[in-house]
């Protein structure tokens, strides 16, 4: 779903401050622009908001509502004229506290959830902790939405209720996964494991060959990823033969030649061609 603000300028009140917004713009975006902090976990600029994590709940009301108010997810709620928003009122804090309490029951071992819960004064969950602790996933679905945005859409939630989790089809290695690891990069609880070893990357139980520089052997992305995005961007495979450092050396050699200078670049008997440089601070494998 893509959401375009319709453009009419309205005035809304957030935490007592009058803020200008366009109708249809989402509350979270308006608040962030005004420098008002609303916590949000499953929100990422690259993808449309989904309202999954519920952390961005805020209380809204209007003067004409006779004192009635309700909680809505700020990431998904379109602004309208005369809206009054409270981002840290008692019902909002209570709702967020319950959320953290529930997450702590689900993922007691997650450092991220522990820290988040501690911010709301919860050291130990008041719910029955999971009998068999699940993984550290809070099912916010950000990985799924990012994967869909990039194109492969390789992962999705499987099962329902307490057994719901993020996985490939039939809980096996996802056939469409290209191993780009963007899901792991955006995961708020860092619960998606990526292992890199001997020129391979393993993610979602699927092993990928990493693309190695034909000159120096450095690796950064998987071969599948290079092929997939290269095809999408219309780039030939000749783009990926060398790593960025070797390509820079090549660029320098060509630039020197074009400049009509008789001297050669690099090649002082050191493999890197960068004699002053201490290697090692720019590494690719994690």
């Amino acid at each position, binding site marked *: 779903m893509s959401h375009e603000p319709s453009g009419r300028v309205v005035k809304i009140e957030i935490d007592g401050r009058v803020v200008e917004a366009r109708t249809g713009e989402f509350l979270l975006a308006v608040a962030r622009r005004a420098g008002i902090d609303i916590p949000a976990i499953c929100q990422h600029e690259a993808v449309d908001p989904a309202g999954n994590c519920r952390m961005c709940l805020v209380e809204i009301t209007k003067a004409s509502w006779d004192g009635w108010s309700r909680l809505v997810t700020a990431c998904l709620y379109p602004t309208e004229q005369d809206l009054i928003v409270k981002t840290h009122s008692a019902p909002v804090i209570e709702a967020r506290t319950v959320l953290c309490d529930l997450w702590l029951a689900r993922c007691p071992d997650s450092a991220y959830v522990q820290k988040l819960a501690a911010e709301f004064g919860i050291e130990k969950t008041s719910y029955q902790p999971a009998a068999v602790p699940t993984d550290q996933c809070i099912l916010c679905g950000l990985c799924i939405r990012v994967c869909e945005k990039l194109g492969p859409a390789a992962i999705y939630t499987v099962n329902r209720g307490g057994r719901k989790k993020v996985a490939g089809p039939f809980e096996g290695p996802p056939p469409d996964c290209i191993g780009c690891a963007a899901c792991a990069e955006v995961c708020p609880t860092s619960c998606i494991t990526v292992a890199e070893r001997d020129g391979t990357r393993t993610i979602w139980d699927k092993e990928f060959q990493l693309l190695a520089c034909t000159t120096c052997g450095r690796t950064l*992305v998987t071969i599948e990823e290079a092929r997939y995005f290269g095809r999408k961007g219309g780039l030939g495979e000749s783009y990926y033969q060398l790593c960025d450092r070797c390509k820079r050396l090549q660029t320098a050699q060509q630039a020197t030649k074009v400049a009509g200078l008789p001297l050669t*670049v690099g090649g*002082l008997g050191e493999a890197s061609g960068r004699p002053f440089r201490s290697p090692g601070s*720019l*590494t690719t494998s994690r």
Partner: protein
Amino acid sequence: MPDMIFVVDVARCSACQKCEIACAVHNVKEMNAARARIAIFPRPSPEFRAGSARWGEARRALPVEGGRESPPLNEASGTPVTCLQCDDAGCVRVCQVGALQRSPTTGAIEIDHAHCVRCKMCVPACPFGNMTWDEPLRQVAKCDLCHGMPQCALACPTGALKYRPVSEVAMPAIGTACGGR
């Protein structure tokens, strides 16, 4: 249309690496040339190379004048390589989330790290090697002309790197790489 242009004059580079240091300090707050968005490839003359077993040792052995190390221009020189801000850029073509956008003021392609999902595909997509992965920051890194105040050009003592009004730079001469359109 940007009114300033980044000009590289390869013949004037003395490989002093001040641009790399200025870039790294400005962009990653660390005095580490390896994390700079610009790279200098030393280009010593054959005679100079023949006379020195290792470039670094030879460079340290150079006479220090006025308290500052200054390799002679015709002996020690380098080739700077930095982002060319291509019109039809490979990095922009492969980015699926729109994190790479051209700035209307400087003409440089800038990274919006809030949009970036760190798939790192833009790194192999650059045919010149000017998109890099900065492991300490866990971000991709490229030259964005410091949003209109390129620190490398300010730091360059020889005029190899310049940031000039487009009107003053009539035509890119041969041997001149241009960025920022």
